[in-house]
């Protein structure tokens, strides 16, 4: 048994650069880790985690506290911090393998997100029905399900406008916020397409269907509880009586883009690691899958109906922002991943499932959940002496340590709803709502009025039921 204080320090160790922890610690075990790390010549210096930390802090604070400066300079900031790590690996560590591996992973990641974003941007759904709590709840449930097929980004892009439109006579911020909770985050926990962290896990070797098989029984009650709360809140909204006539029709425009979405979905499996007949294009840093996805980006945009793009106010800026920021994130997180795996290996016995759940969740709420997930996946593998860079070992881990993988998968996806910056679609939904004239709560009001009182109790219940007490 380890005491509470030691547990807190261990979680902090996973959250913060090693230098910072050891500077404030008099614990012999932590100092021994530091000593062991310094002796290990293959590992990067702990100071090289700083660019990653700086970039994540900038991403968290930039859009809120220095919006205009950030908007203009984020590509330079991301590239500059990423370059520091790249130069360090090239010149000091002479390790090109880690860089190439990461670059290939980045291309897969951005190919999926960009293709989903562009293909869903060419689809327009019109619903001419009277808004009721039941209809709204159904749309949220539908969004939660399709988020696993077209991603939380795609589902959010597709459904936020019709959801707002049917509620246009009586829309309130809580409509948008529950949409962010369910469609933009919690819903997407069942497949690697659902949320970027899970896709990164898939790229590292977790089976595509592992998530739906092992997470559905956590996902379902969580989604239903959040929707029930929404239903109760929405039922208390008095609404405005109007004499509008509703045809009850649901119209889809841009149906060919559904075809593009299917192509994207199928192409996820076109990987030499999944299907033997798929040729590898190595040493190129991309494969057939990425070529298909980038082709979809081109053709989906070129063939899109201009009126639909206008109705969706389609803009490349959100995906451009993701592309630039994630170049920096993927590069700067290489040392963090390696160090965390090493630390977890040394301290493995003392970190429990609950620690992983809360540490992954808290960080995912405030930082981007994709790199956070990868860091903690690396830590969990390290705890059992496995290497995140070896697909076979990742596969072994998913078979033997289900509850650990469940804990970080659920936490990374669910806690992404805690803030506007927890997951990519959150900010996009907020921006779309504001462009439509809906005044949204500030960063802190979102947390204080909505995510903390509604989601934290639910996440505590999830922890108590599924993860508490597991060593």
């Amino acid at each position, binding site marked *: 048994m380890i005491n509470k204080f030691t547990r807190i320090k261990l979680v902090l160790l996973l959250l913060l650069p090693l230098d910072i922890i050891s500077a404030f610690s008099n614990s012999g075990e932590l100092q021994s880790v530091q000593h062991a790390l310094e002796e290990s010549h293959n590992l990067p210096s702990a100071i090289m985690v700083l660019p990653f930390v700086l970039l994540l802090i900038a991403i968290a604070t930039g859009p809120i506290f220095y919006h*205009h400066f950030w908007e203009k300079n984020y590509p330079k900031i991301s590239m500059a911090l990423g370059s520091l790590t790249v130069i360090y690996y090239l010149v000091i560590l002479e390790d090109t393998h880690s860089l190439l591996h990461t670059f290939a992973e980045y291309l897969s990641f951005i190919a999926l997100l960009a293709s989903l974003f562009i293909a869903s941007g060419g689809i*327009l759904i*019109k619903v001419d029905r009277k808004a009721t709590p039941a209809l709204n709840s159904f749309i949220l449930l539908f969004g939660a399900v399709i988020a696993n097929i077209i991603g939380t980004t795609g589902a959010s892009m597709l459904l936020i*406008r019709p959801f*707002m*439109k049917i509620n*246009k006579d009586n*829309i309130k911020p809580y409509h948008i916020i529950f949409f962010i909770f369910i469609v933009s985050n919690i819903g997407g926990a069942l497949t690697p397409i659902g949320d970027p962290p899970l896709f990164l896990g898939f790229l590292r070797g977790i089976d595509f269907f592992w998530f739906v098989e092992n997470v559905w029984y956590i996902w379902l009650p969580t989604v239903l509880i959040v929707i029930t709360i929404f239903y109760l809140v929405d039922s208390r909204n008095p609404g405005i009586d109007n004499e509008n006539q509703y045809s009850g029709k649901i119209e889809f425009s841009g149906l060919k883009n559904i075809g593009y979405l299917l192509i994207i979905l199928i192409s996820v499996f076109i990987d030499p690691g999944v299907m033997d007949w798929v040729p590898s294009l190595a040493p190129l840093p991309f494969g057939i899958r990425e070529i298909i996805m980038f082709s979809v980006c081109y053709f989906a945009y070129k063939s899109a109906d201009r*009126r639909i*793009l*206008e*109705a*969706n*106010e*389609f*803009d*490349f*800026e959100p995906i451009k922002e993701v592309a630039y920021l994630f170049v920096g994130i993927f590069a700067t997180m290489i040392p963090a991943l390696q160090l965390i795996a090493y630390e977890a290996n040394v301290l493995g016995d003392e970190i429990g499932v609950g620690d992983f759940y809360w540490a992954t969740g808290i960080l995912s709420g405030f930082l981007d959940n994709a790199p956070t997930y990868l860091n903690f996946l690396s830590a969990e593998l390290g705890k059992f002496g496995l290497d995140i860079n070896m697909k076979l070992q990742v596969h072994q881990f998913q078979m033997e340590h289900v509850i650990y993988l469940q804990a970080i998968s659920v936490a990374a996806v669910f806690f992404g709803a805690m803030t506007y910056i927890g997951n990519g679609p959150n900010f996009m939904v*907020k*921006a*779309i709502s*504001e*462009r*439509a*004239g*809906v*005044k949204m709560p500030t960063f802190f009001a979102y947390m204080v009025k909505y995510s903390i009182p509604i989601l934290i109790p639910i996440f505590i219940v999830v922890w108590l039921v599924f993860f508490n007490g597991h060593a």
Partner: protein
Amino acid sequence: MKSLREVLDNKLTGLHYGNRILLPFGAHVLKAVVENDIVMDFSNAKKGAAYNITRDFTELYFYDYRDLSEVVTEYETIKLVCVENGKDVFTLSNHVKIALYLKEKHILEIEELNDDILFLE
């Protein structure tokens, strides 16, 4: 000065220069949306936006932007809720939602917002 309806029906255009917009009709602006900034402060306090109705046009300044064409991209619009000068502001049916498209050579296309583009007053 032309009427708002005349401008919309005949697809007449306005002008844009940096953060300044010229509308070829006289109107009171109640609400504006640029990107995801919702502007409802037209108090001329050098933040948000301010408008001025002259004899020939309505000019609108967005103080938080240096050049609107840098932030409003091809498929995006600036959205306004406005009321034609001289009409009763307090009659909701006089509120007109319009979309402004920033085109090349400082041309500003003006359209009444159709049902596809979502803009809640």
